[in-house]
């Protein structure tokens, strides 16, 4: 039998408005709902839906009152009842219970209901639930209660608020805008909830044994949510409550908790300093102790977290930068931290850690990821010029590829851990890309080229590393602009390796190479002193024949990339209005062949795009008088063929592109 309250939706025409829903509920459905809920043994899915719906309806005071009058809220959110019915074990019930309450808690009456029903404890218990989703929802809910109902005036916590001299409004939060003017009973309810939650946080933050780490982690996540939005009074109360426990956690050195703990400390540090006050001494002390941890792998993560937050604290920034650069300094032997490195407190333990492969790779990757950010720190924080960091990264790349010339300096025992490591190579290449914009590094272009060409020449190179090497080359060329720094020999070497790689066995390598040739053309055209023809950049190697060859590639991805690269390569000559060559005519006929015969949509789409690019550059840059008539007529003839072929293509995207061109 379908209950009346369910029929009221299923029988409706179109989507009902919330007002309609409430009306129908109050007049038709709700009277049968409690009976149905208790007698008809609904499935967890249906209960889950009703919990969420009840919460949504109760989000307004009217809706809340209506449900309350019919005892629906007491019935639906009675978790004991679901326990006894054996349904609480189903995570979808638990999560819906939280979500329902979360939706409802938008007004003071809902808060009173929450407090009277004593839901704080079960909610806190759900913070250690077996389900990630339930835990996350419980954390969101706890944060919502504390933040949404926090008083706007500093009188909320029985005199614990700090007086702010200028009395100006502190950090704005959504709650500020949405909520003001809290009645007395709400304040009492809020104090009850806050007291219970803070008591719990204080008791449970430090794990009693190793198995309690999960709970500590969740509490730290909750604190992070709270500190991000809490007003000064709540924030101070929070910090006052948990400072001792945070200190205890910081000294206990639980690796799993390092990052979340650091997040809390940084949030506390920055929020207190943005209020125009001197940061709390305890928080500053905590921050210092986090940056002096014994375990190098935790320490480097803490330093990276510090740097990521963009904290302005010069003393700690300098310390974080030194911690982060130390592994690179040790491995490469570059004097990144000055000559007197013996003073580095952690040098010995870091060297020891670097001798083991897994922590070595992890630490060096953290270090590399942060190098671009490091070079942007103020000069008084930076222990060496950015150019030296680029040298170190290049040196590391050489070490990774087993280049014996780089193995003379640095720490030999660590080399074996990074030689051939794709992960370190990729991180280093990404760092190199990021470093291209650092101040004063442009002179390194030649050296960057040399190292990257060495990489491209390595026959055992992983395709993903090769792809990043190409990306790094393009990035450095586009940033440096002055391509005269690249010697003829280097261009020759690059051209040789490109010729070799475009015939690689692996399609991934061929595709990256073809893409590179296209991007190279774009970069060379936009350089300060562009070459006569972009392809002249590659010395003796002519890129167009390579790309023409790639049009025959068995892999459709490569064919499509070759077509796009050809468009990029020829764009320069189109814009210059260069005379038509036999090569161009051949390309056009091949492209029309692809459009009519290729089985893959990628390639056909690329052909249409090719002609769109040609057509637009032709019409915008070439006056009819200067354009050689043969080029124009070839283009016009081709465009008509493209339109007729593309408009009947079974691939809708080819068709759309064609119509766009038309």
């Amino acid at each position, binding site marked *: 039998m379908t209950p009346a309250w369910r029929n009221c939706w299923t029988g409706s025409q179109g989507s009902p408005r919330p007002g309609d829903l409430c009306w129908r509920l109050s007049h038709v459905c709700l009277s049968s709902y409690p009976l149905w809920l208790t007698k008809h043994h609904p499935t967890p899915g249906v209960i889950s839906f009703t919990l969420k719906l009840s919460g949504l309806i109760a989000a307004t005071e009217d809706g809340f009152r209506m449900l309350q009058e019919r005892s629906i809220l007491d019935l639906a959110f009675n978790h004991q009842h679901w326990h006894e019915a054996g349904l609480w074990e*189903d*995570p*979808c019930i638990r999560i819906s219970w939280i979500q329902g309450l979360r939706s409802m808690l938008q007004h003071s009456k809902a808060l009173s209901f929450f407090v009277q029903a004593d839901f704080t404890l079960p909610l806190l218990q759900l913070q250690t639930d*077996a*389900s*990630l*989703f*339930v835990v*996350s929802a419980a954390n969101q809910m706890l944060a919502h209660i504390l933040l949404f109902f926090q008083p706007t005036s500093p009188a909320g916590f029985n005199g614990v608020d700090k007086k702010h001299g200028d009395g100006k409004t502190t950090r704005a939060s959504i709650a500020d805008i949405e909520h003001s003017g809290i009645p007395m009973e709400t304040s009492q309810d809020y104090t009850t909830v806050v007291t219970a939650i803070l008591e719990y946080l204080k008791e449970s933050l430090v794990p009693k044994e190793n198995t309690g780490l999960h709970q500590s982690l969740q509490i730290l*996540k909750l604190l992070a949510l709270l500190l991000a939005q809490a007003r000064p009074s709540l924030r101070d109360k929070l910090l006052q409550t948990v400072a001792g426990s945070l200190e205890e956690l910081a000294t206990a050195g639980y690796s799993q908790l390092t*990052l*979340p703990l650091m*997040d809390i400390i940084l949030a506390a540090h920055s929020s207190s300093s943005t209020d125009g006050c001197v940061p709390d001494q305890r928080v500053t002390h905590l921050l210092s102790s986090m940056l002096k941890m014994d375990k190098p792998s935790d320490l480097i993560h803490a330093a990276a*977290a510090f740097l990521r937050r963009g904290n302005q604290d010069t003393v700690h920034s300098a310390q974080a930068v030194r911690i982060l650069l130390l592994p690179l300094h040790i491995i490469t032997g570059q004097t990144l931290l000055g000559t007197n490195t013996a003073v580095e407190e952690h040098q010995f333990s870091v060297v020891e850690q670097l001798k083991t*492969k*897994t922590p070595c790779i*992890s630490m060096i*990757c953290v270090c590399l990821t942060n190098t671009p950010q490091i070079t942007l720190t103020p000069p008084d924080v930076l222990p060496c010029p950015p150019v030296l960091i680029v040298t170190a990264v290049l040196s590391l790349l050489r070490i990774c590829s087993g280049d014996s010339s780089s193995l003379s300096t640095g720490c030999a025992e660590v080399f074996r851990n990074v030689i051939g490591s794709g*992960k370190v190579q*990729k991180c280093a290449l990404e760092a190199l890309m990021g470093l291209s914009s650092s101040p004063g590094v442009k002179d390194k272009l030649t050296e960057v080229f040399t190292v990257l060409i060495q990489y491209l020449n390595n026959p055992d190179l992983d*395709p*993903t590393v090769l*792809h990043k090497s190409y990306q790094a080359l393009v990035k450095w060329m586009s940033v440096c602009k002055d391509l005269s720094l690249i010697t003829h020999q280097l261009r020759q070497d690059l051209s040789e390796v490109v010729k070799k790689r475009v015939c690689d066995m692996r399609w*991934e390598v061929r*595709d*990256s190479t073809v893409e590179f040739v296209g991007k190279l053309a774009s970069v060379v055209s936009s350089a300060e002193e562009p070459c006569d023809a972009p392809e002249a950049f590659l010395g003796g190697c002519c890129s167009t024949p390579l790309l023409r060859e790639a049009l025959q590639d068995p892999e459709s*991805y490569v064919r499509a990339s070759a077509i796009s690269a050809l468009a990029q390569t020829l764009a320069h000559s189109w814009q210059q209005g260069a005379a038509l060559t036999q090569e161009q005519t051949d390309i056009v006929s091949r492209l029309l062949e692809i459009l009519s015969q290729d*089985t893959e*949509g*990628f390639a056909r*789409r690329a052909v249409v795009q090719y002609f769109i690019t040609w057509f637009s550059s032709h019409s915008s840059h070439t006056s009819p008088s200067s354009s050689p008539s043969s080029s124009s007529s070839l283009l016009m003839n081709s465009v008509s063929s493209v339109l007729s072929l593309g408009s009947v293509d*079974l*691939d*809708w*995207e080819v068709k759309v592109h064609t119509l766009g061109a038309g």
Partner: protein
Amino acid sequence: MPEIKVTPLGAGQDVGRSCILVSIGGKNIMLDCGMHMGYNDDRRFPDFSYITQNGRLTDFLDCVIISHFHLDHCGALPYMSEMVGYDGPIYMTHPTKAICPILLEDFRKITVDKKGETNFFTSQMIKDCMKKVIPLNLHQTVQVDDELEIKAYYAGHVLGAAMVHIKVGSESVVYTGDYNMTPDRHLGAAWIDKCRPDILISESTYATTIRDSKRCRERDFLKKVHETIERGGKVLIPVFALGRAQELCILLETFWERMNLKAPIYFSTGLTEKANHYYKLFITWTNQKIRKTFVQRNMFEFKHIKAFDRSYADNPGPMVVFATPGMLHAGQSLQIFKKWAGNEKNMVIMPGYCVQGTIGHKILNGQRKLEMEGRATLDVKLQVEYMSFSAHADAKGIMQLIRMAEPRNMVLVHGEAVKMEFLKGKIEQEFSIDCYMPANGETITVTTNPSVPVDISLNLLKREMALGGPLPDPKKPRTMHGTLIMKENSLKLVSSEQALKELGLNEHQLRFTCRVQLQDPHSDPDTLHRIYTHLKSVLKGYTIQHLPDGTVMVESIVIKVSSSAEDTNTKVLLLSWSYQDEDLGSFLSTLLKKGLPSGLC
């Protein structure tokens, strides 16, 4: 104790998007990265923020493994790698790597076209994602890093589907993906070593089904096709180029042969080329019969099934056509559908899932009037049938796999909770192992007993043998004594002498000394002699010497006598022994404290 954790982000008590997170030996692995076909919003992809609140996905995950090309197993991969930002290794078999981008591209087109979504992965992203994929060969152990290794096993189900064995040290997990334990018409049956993993994570789509139901479906399919043909109608079967199409072709071919039917069966040319290309490339992944046939003739050189030409659609009389794509959203299948939709004698059979927004989805939901391009409407009068032919292991098959692999624990995913509950009971009863069925987001933790492999020196083994023990047997544990050397990630048990030699250390002697006071009114030499005589009588079988330097030695224990300065009758005995003779030394000191018997001379 070490633990293995399993958390489904998808496929926990549902058949939505498979995405299972495994933490084993400090490594984090994502098994499958599927898309939920039932959602149009963010919920279609797994929520990766649950695992990356404090950093990049690449820093957290050691690798991603994709079991097969179905979108509920790989559909979120470009989103994860190119939009969320995962740059680590992705593993899948060669056929999956080849076919996966076709499905992803197909789905992207539908999403962008039919639903007009713009915030979706692009063709470029699919390509960039596929370039990061490392292909796997069957039964080849791949070292992800120094500690983590993976090995793929044949899973049946679809071309290229694999189960994967993940091992870190002595801990291991097997993930099945979707699999089929009985060979079908073109693929073989799943198979795995008796690898005794700590956990076997198995799909359970047909946890309560037994094999016959598939036969029934096939009979039903043939009956419906036959009836339509008999009444002069046309049958359209929209299919994806690879997957069940081959299976259905073989099924119809056999039926036509048996029934001596004359109506033509066609398949669209795109289908032939693509399918032949991939089956030729990956012929080793098909079953033995197909492999044999392939040597002699093309797999699609059927007697009754011929290549389709556009003009055939208008031919009068009955016919059966297999055409792509499978969801009737574009291409040849849609063109044929438009032509045949108006005739109630015709039939369209949808053998797979259809995404919302497609014609396939609309007609399966009973829509009989379709808005086509140019505001034209199409009346759907032909019969519409949905028949799923997906090849999953049934309850019997799942039990068979457990018997094959002999896991210590079982985790059920990719199934409905009620069905799982039934199977869980059966597994626990029959195999006496724990069986879990975590919901999405729920973590199950399994404690493992680590066995740490240690090398043992030949000398030590020979010495043990010389002591008369049984010959070493790997199946019978026994205690060995030696010195454990932990050096450069290897563990070696050697004799203490060898350990000293290898490590370049000197042997140190540890000696205990104690003083015992004794009342004995004799000279010191006499007292020493009396002690010698006493010990001789008490300690039979021990080497006791009275040495000329004024000491008595019992094994390594040295006894000296001196008189007290205050009282010459009070003797002070100095006992010293090495730590090897600790028991004897303690015994002697206790014995001598009791004094010497009066009758001694």
